[in-house]
């Protein structure tokens, strides 16, 4: 046992002797959460628009003001001719052009109907869709206003309540996502690389002929990363809680337990990657390509899984962070307990067993 701890100590020293790596290991989650909290926002805010008012009467001015005062839009310029439409979009800053038909107020007064055209730069389809929906809602609101003194209208007024995230902050979905991303990258990538390094340098053979059991070697290799990852997980949760007011509704103990479980899973993935790669570069590229973008895109972190094509939805079942993110969201934001997440927890455990047994099978104690 003493031998084992000496080995763990050596691994710790390896990491801590390199201040640059340490700085990045601890700095990365903090920088990421800050970027997600402050920069990457899905909210529609200050979108640049242009107005092409062919009518220039008080009604079109009123509508323009109403749209601009909503906080969603910023007037970039007013245009006066059709040729300018294309020019504006090609420059790339303006996302929507609002076109009022000629004699707008007159038509509205006499025929009770007038038209507005909303031209959106739909090269970014998602944003275009949102922007147009927002603009439409504002115009409908205006229509409601001008008809209010008219006669009582039969209508249903929906009262929407945004559950679990009343203020619609995007950081609520980024905290669980960042946790999954960071834990997976640090644990899996670091372990796979550090084991692959021993192989590349030929020092793995020295370790294998030492009195340490192969299991002890692997355990010793991952031990520092367990602690590092756990510290990172805690710092993400604390940062979310204190800086961005992301609540922790459920049990903290359960949250910690699930986090540990996920760290183990990430480590077992890392060990598996190292058994299939001979050099650090291979280990690194496999880690990056199989972990980074899939975690961002296939885990339901930013894009809801149920909008994806069916085949891809099945594929997402295989992506470990998907399950972890569900668990974290449930515990932190909904405040539910193990009764709600036992299925996901079992899946995580199953994945750990799968990767560990696969690695044990692949692990070679002999030279090639």
């Amino acid at each position, binding site marked *: 046992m003493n031998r084992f701890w000496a080995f763990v100590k050596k691994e710790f020293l390896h990491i801590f002797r390199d201040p640059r790596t340490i700085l990045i290991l601890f700095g990365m989650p903090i920088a990421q959460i800050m970027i997600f909290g402050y920069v990457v926002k899905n909210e529609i805010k200050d979108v640049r628009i242009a107005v092409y008012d062919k009518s220039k009467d008080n009604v079109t001015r009123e509508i323009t003001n109403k749209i601009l005062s909503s906080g969603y839009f910023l007037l970039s310029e007013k245009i006066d001719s059709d040729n300018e439409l294309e020019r504006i979009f090609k420059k*790339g800053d303006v996302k929507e052009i609002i076109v009022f038909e000629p004699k707008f107020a007159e038509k509205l007064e006499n025929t009770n109907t007038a038209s507005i055209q909303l031209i959106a730069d739909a090269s970014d389809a998602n944003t275009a869709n949102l922007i147009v929906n927002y603009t439409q809602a504002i115009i409908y609101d205006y229509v409601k206003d001008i008809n209010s003194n008219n006669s009582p209208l039969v209508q249903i007024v*929906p009262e929407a309540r945004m*559950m679990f995230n009343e203020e619609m902050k995007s950081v609520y979905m980024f905290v669980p996502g960042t946790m999954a991303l960071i834990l997976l990258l640090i644990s899996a990538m670091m372990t796979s690389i550090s084991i692959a390094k021993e192989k590349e340098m030929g020092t793995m053979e020295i370790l294998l002929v030492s009195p340490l059991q192969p299991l002890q070697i692997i355990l010793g290799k991952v031990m520092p990363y367990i602690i590092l990852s756990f510290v990172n997980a805690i710092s993400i949760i604390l940062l979310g809680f204190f800086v961005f007011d992301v609540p922790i509704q459920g049990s903290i103990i359960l949250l910690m337990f699930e986090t540990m479980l996920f760290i183990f899973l990430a480590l077992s993935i890392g060990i598996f990657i190292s058994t299939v790669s001979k050099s650090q570069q291979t280990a690194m590229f496999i880690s990056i390509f199989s972990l980074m973008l899939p975690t961002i895109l296939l885990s339901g972190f930013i894009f809801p899984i149920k909008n994806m094509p069916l085949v891809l939805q099945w594929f997402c079942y295989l992506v470990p962070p998907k399950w972890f993110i569900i668990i974290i969201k449930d515990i932190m934001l909904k405040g539910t307990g193990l009764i709600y997440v036992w299925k996901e927890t079992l899946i995580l455990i199953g994945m750990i067993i799968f990767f560990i047994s696969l690695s044990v099978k692949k692990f070679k104690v002999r030279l090639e």
Partner: protein
Amino acid sequence: MLPIIFLLPIVQLIILVNAATLEMKNIDLVVVDNDLSSSSRKLIAKFEGSKFFNLDEFTFSIEKAKQKLLKNEADIIINIPSGFEKDLFSEEKTKIQLLINAINSTAGGLTNVYATMVISDFNKNIIAENINILPLKSYKKINVLPSFWYNPELNYKIYMLPGILVILITVIGMFLSSLNLVREKEMGTIEQINVTPIKKYQFIAGKLIPFWIIALFELAFGLVIGKLLFQVPMIGNLFLLFGFASVYLLVMLGIGLFISTIADNQQQVLFINFFFLLVFILMSGIFTPVESMPEWAQKVNIVNPLAYFMKVIRMVLLKGSTFNDIKEQFFSLLVYASIVLSLAIWRYRKVV
């Protein structure tokens, strides 16, 4: 190594482009109807008829519905109170409650928008049906006609493909070149090169050019896939795009090489690269428009090469922007490239 460099990114491109969508198609709806009147039934039918919603369950208990929300089995609950129809016609206004899962604020916001659209449609119908019993004289109406330029079908894939492609070629180019240099340090072979008469700039150029070509080749390969599998329009001039890409790659590879002249081993390079890359990617506007970022973040993006290329590749491919539209970005990157490359050459020491 070769299959990893070529195969993995392409497989990724195909899979991930399909994943990145916010097109809401199957919003799971739970209805709590305690009114059971013909109006409430009509409203529910309206939701069922909408292509966005998917009636998951019909119940009388709001508690049961909330359980479904907690279990992720529902995205929205519509709560119709008893007396709904009575209120509608006696008071001309009646309230219903929408409970929306908003953990993903964008998806929640869109769900709300779609639900409101269905309800206002329903309102219009009631007005039309009851037009004779109501003293409606002059109900004013504004027609809103949206038109979506460059992408009338709102196909998100043609927007995401260029973005993901940019990330893939960046990762490949930057990591390969910087790891290659530092590997020489790790193995000690760099000393053998140091004692040759090779000039510093020649050495850096030698470490740069192969990976620069590989990355450009991957870009071409990715574009072919985009054209064949995803019908990405390529309106602009492809020479312009490749010209811009080659300057962009000089910047990214230059940064990678500079980092590897500082670092001692592959792990360090990996982590420093990774840190910058992740920050660059997230701030580049691949998922969210740069314009909705705070002012200071847009200032930070001045030093983010990815942000330039992310914007330009989409402008050129999808909108057919010309050199005149992108010259600002082009010259900024040109200056950037010469700075980082000189830094890399200056920092590379031929001593041990």
